């Protein structure tokens, strides 16, 4: 039977995977998938041949017992001796032993082959992930990749490890069994073949609809799970905003959607299962009736009818397996298409041989649009002097982050050029780019591994000394040394949980070790807990020391401390100059600054300002 819980088993895997509307990563075409599968098989055709031969041998051996039983029936009917019955029983036992031994070696060889292919597919996929262009990584988000790396790899695993061997065995069994009936008596094949057209038609009807139906079903369970997870995760928010009834209504709506999806697949099965089940029994009834007719006319023996009936009955299990796995094969192929799709992502860098002459970072006449016609940056030019501190301020949507990404060499500009030492950033090999410029965001992922592993990412051969001094530079060596395992403390998923500021310090230590001469900070400290903000700012300023810095700033005091302030609005630079100059210019920046201070008469330097204010209180 179809597994009753088909689809539901996948629901938990699908939890994270509601298909998103904006799929950026490609899916391989059917022809490419087949070609890839063929190539993979071709490299292992010898193993594949062995597997097929072993299974075929096992199936052949398995066809002996019904045939011999038929012989026994005929012999008993005609009168025979106990000794001949014993002999035939012995032959049956021998056939069984041969069958079991062949099955054992076939299953082992099949398992080895499946595991090997599976390992190749998943390793190639991860290499594809690790080679994704920077611009795609920045834009695609992780949802789609998470789905591919979890659900699709699992789906493929089930198909490769269980599905393919099961289908191979079943297909061999069905064809060889029909062959055995033909050998028994060719006439008796006819009733078996009668069912082929209707079974083919119903299966086709079902398989055309089933994958989409089950996908929708498992996605609907995913939504249900996600909603519940949200209710739990946001329980405090639910309480604060009194969202209880809303969340319950939401759960009911999700359940209704899930139920609709379940009812759809149930309706498909309502037509398909009885048809499939009938197709199993029809050959049996047909063989029996036709065989009886033939027997009455003396065209065949009672033993032949018996053997054919037993063969027809033996068709039920492999037919069931075959049809049961068909839709898995479809989902497995779809999963493989998504895994192979990564290979179709075009490279976004054209590394050349030119190397930067100096550390001068320049953008000239740069325009960029994510959607054609909607320029986020409009012909911006900016020269960053080595050692300079630049703060970019401006309202949301002004294009600050986009400019940051262009300056960090993540996106190539549509028009104009961003160069370092005269070389366009996207023509530098990635390894070289990393030594020059780094983009620092508020994101601070800790990888599963030791603290050392997490810091030496870009510099794998760094010694303990270098790691420790990087930690010391960001003011984190103290707490790391206090840990029982020091640098070897396992962190990240499954390891010791670090606080967010600690994780951010580790991320900063990575940068110290990677040692780029220019840093682009994008809201690097914007979401820091006020309890640790100052400490982290100290860590950050240690990292910035001696480097060129372009900071996309939220806080005006960052702008105030910078050598140059760039004010951006609507994709253009509207003001540029030192803080003091901009204040004197009395433009929008000056207005903002004065509102920030509540009093425009207050001098611009913090230290002076304090004394001054204090003095005024005193006076």
């Amino acid at each position, binding site marked *: 039977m179809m597994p009753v819980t088909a689809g539901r088993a996948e629901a938990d895997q699908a939890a994270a995977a509601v298909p998103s509307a904006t799929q950026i990563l490609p899916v391989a075409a059917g022809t490419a998938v087949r070609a890839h599968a063929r190539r993979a098989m071709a490299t292992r055709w010898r193993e594949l041949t062995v597997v097929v031969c072993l299974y075929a041998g096992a199936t052949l051996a398995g066809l002996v017992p019904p045939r011999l039983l038929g012989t026994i029936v005929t012999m008993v009917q005609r009168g025979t001796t106990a000794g001949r019955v014993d002999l035939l029983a012995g032959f049956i036992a021998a056939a069984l032993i041969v069958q079991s031994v062949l099955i054992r070696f076939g299953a082992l060889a099949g398992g080895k082959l499946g595991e090997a292919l599976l390992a190749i597919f998943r390793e190639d996929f991860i290499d594809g992930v690790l080679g994704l262009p920077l611009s795609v990584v920045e834009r695609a988000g992780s949802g789609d990749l998470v789905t591919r790396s979890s659900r699709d790899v699992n789906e493929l695993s089930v198909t490769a490890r269980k599905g393919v061997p099961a289908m191979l065995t079943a297909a061999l069994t069905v064809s060889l069994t029909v062959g055995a009936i033909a050998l028994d008596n060719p006439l008796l094949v006819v009733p078996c073949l009668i069912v082929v057209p209707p079974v083919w038609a119903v299966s086709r009807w079902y398989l055309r609809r089933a994958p989409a139906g089950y996908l929708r079903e498992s996605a609907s369970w995913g939504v249900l799970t996600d909603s519940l997870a949200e209710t739990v995760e946001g329980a405090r928010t639910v309480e604060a905003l009194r969202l209880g009834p809303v969340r319950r209504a939401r759960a009911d709506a999700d359940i209704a959607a899930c139920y609709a999806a379940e009812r759809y697949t149930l309706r498909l099965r309502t037509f398909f299962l009885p048809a499939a089940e009938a197709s199993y029994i029809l050959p049996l009834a047909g063989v029996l009736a036709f065989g009886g007719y033939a027997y009455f006319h003396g065209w065949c023996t009672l033993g032949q009818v018996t053997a054919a009936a037993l063969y027809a009955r033996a068709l039920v299990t492999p037919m069931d397996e075959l049809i049961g796995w068909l839709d898995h094969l479809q989902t497995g192929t779809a999963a493989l298409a998504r895994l192979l799709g990564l290979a179709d992502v075009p490279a976004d860098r054209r590394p050349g041989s030119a190397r930067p002459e100096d550390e001068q970072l320049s953008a000239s006449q740069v325009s960029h649009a994510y959607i054609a016609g909607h320029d986020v940056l409009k012909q911006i030019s900016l020269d960053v002097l080595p050692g300079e501190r630049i703060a970019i301020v401006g309202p949301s949507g002004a294009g600050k982050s986009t400019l940051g990404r262009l300056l960090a060499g993540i996106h190539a500009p549509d028009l104009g050029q961003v160069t370092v030492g005269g070389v366009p950033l996207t023509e530098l090999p990635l390894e070289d780019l990393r030594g020059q410029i780094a983009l620092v965001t508020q994101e601070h992922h800790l990888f599963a591994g030791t603290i050392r592993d997490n810091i030496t990412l870009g510099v794998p051969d760094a010694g303990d000394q270098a790691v420790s001094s990087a930690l010391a530079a960001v003011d984190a060596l103290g707490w790391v040394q206090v840990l029982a395992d020091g640098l070897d403390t396992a962190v990240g998923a499954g390891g010791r949980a670090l606080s967010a500021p600690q994780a951010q310090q580790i991320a900063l230590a990575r940068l110290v070790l990677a040692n780029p001469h220019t840093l682009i900070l994008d*809201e690097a400290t914007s979401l820091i807990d006020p309890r640790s903000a100052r400490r982290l700012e100290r860590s950050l300023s240690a990292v910035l020391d001696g480097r060129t810095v372009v900071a996309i700033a939220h806080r005006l005091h960052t702008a105030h401390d910078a050598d140059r302030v760039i004010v951006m609005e609507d994709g253009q630079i509207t003001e540029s100059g030192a803080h003091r100059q901009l204040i004197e210019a009395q433009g929008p920046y000056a207005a903002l600054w004065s509102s920030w201070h509540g*009093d425009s008469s207050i001098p611009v330097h913090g230290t002076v300002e304090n004394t001054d204010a204090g003095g005024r209180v005193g006076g």
Partner: protein
Amino acid sequence: MRDLPVPDPGTPDLRSAPRFIGWLIARQRTGVMLGIVWGCSWMVAQALVPAAIGAAVDALAARRPGPFAADCLAVLALGAATAVAGILRHRRVVTCFLDAAYRIIQLVTAHAVTLGATLARLTSTGEVVSISTADVEAVGGAIDVTGRGSGAVAALIAVAIILLSRSVPLGLIVLVGAPVLTALVGVLLRPLHQRQRRYRDLQGKLASRAADIVAGLRVLRGIGGESAFSARYREQSQQLRHTGVSVARTESFLAGAEVLLPGLFVTAATWIAAHYALHRAITLGELVTFYAYTSFLALPLATLTEAADKIVRGHVGAGRIISVLRLTPDATDPTCGAAEPGPDATLHDPVSGVTVTAGELVGLAADDLAQAVRLADRIGRYSSPEPAAWPGAGRAAEPGPGPGPGPEPGPGPELGGVPLADLPVAVLRARILVATNDAHLFAGRLDEQLAGAGLVDLHAMPVAVSAAAAHDVLDAIPGGLAGHLAARGRTLSGGQAQRLRLARALLADPEILVLVEPTSAVDAHTEASIALGLREARLGRTTVVVTNSPLLLDRTDRVLFLQDGTVTAAGSHADLLRSSPQYASAVTRGAEP
């Protein structure tokens, strides 16, 4: 088919796991009964096929076409009955499965909502989520298997009657031998289960390695280390492959044994039966019947094993579900209800000395903002979050059951002279909203999510959105207000998400709104616009803004400055800038502490 979900999931029996499952079954007694009836018909119809084949062979041997035709028709009829009863059973039990699963999800959702803020402290999200996947599946599975399980028992009884009526010794051989074989195969399966567990563990580890790579991909592609991660993945992948091969080795022995053992049994039984037939103790047809039954019995026996397994799993799953449904909330309503303070009540905290009169927009600044945040938590009567384990505090910040609400330092905050602790939680939440930055943004239509508990108000919504300076967020979401907001606002930047939270809090329009650092992630330009908008949006309502941002503080009616947790200065932002150097230093961050 019934309509799901049911409007009210009912009150479950939480006394024990079996009682809980019993309660679920009692909700759909007819469905489960029909499932059993169809399950029995389905299995018995299949069980009669070998007997019909045997009868047909006998009719053939006796050369009697009439009965033979009848027997063929019987096989056909049994096939039709199997198909019809099978699908009716399937439809019935799937509905029962879904009824139970959905009911459990409704119950857990309702309970999570009741527990509110307590829930996160008592259990992890993962644990509750595993209920909606694994445990629901387990309990549903136990209910689902009732149909097939009873069918298996019925089939076994039918086969026993048929075989014993033909030949007692042969019947006994088959009826005793088949279960013994099933048990034997079960024993052989045990080492396989162990290896499969190991395989699944490794598979899980490899999947988390992949997830880790994907989650940190920006970092990896930005800083480097791809080859090391590729090598590590490859190493783990090969380890999994080798374990997979060792599983395959065990499985291959088992696959062989699964053919050999029953096969030898069938052969032995058939051999004996053939001798019986030779001595005319049984007919030829009966010989065929015996042969067919020896292999048929594997089906009901496997079903019974599966049923036992599913019932055990269902029991465990039900246990985990009731343990969550039994949790009770922290903030219980006081037994003696205090008189509810009237409208326009003054908010007062005796410990810090903070007093906010009705209709005021008050800024709450602090030398250490964490103290002001804690005060906001006290006003909301939330158990204080654990202080972050900062450097050297040698303990892992593992999530898990922490201590309950700690002893309050002195008397708690009051509203109109009534201690907040004496108010029912519902009243408290209705009048005071403490809006923090960790507030969750739920997935769904943007306007509905902003409206929160209320209805989408076409007038109020644009006003709140513009007050929160969230216009560009609408542009960032395809479809704007009618577009889809992703869970946790994960497609948005920190600043965009923060402004949506602010808009939602403004739309909730509570009598008293406490905003904790509402602009910490937005740029100065936007902050200035929010400062203006907030003032307009909250006109005439009581608002407390916990912040050190001068742009916001400048637009408040009054600023309270907390030092060491108590109010040391009060006045307008401009006044305080002049009069308190500590204030000036705190809000402009001009100097290092």
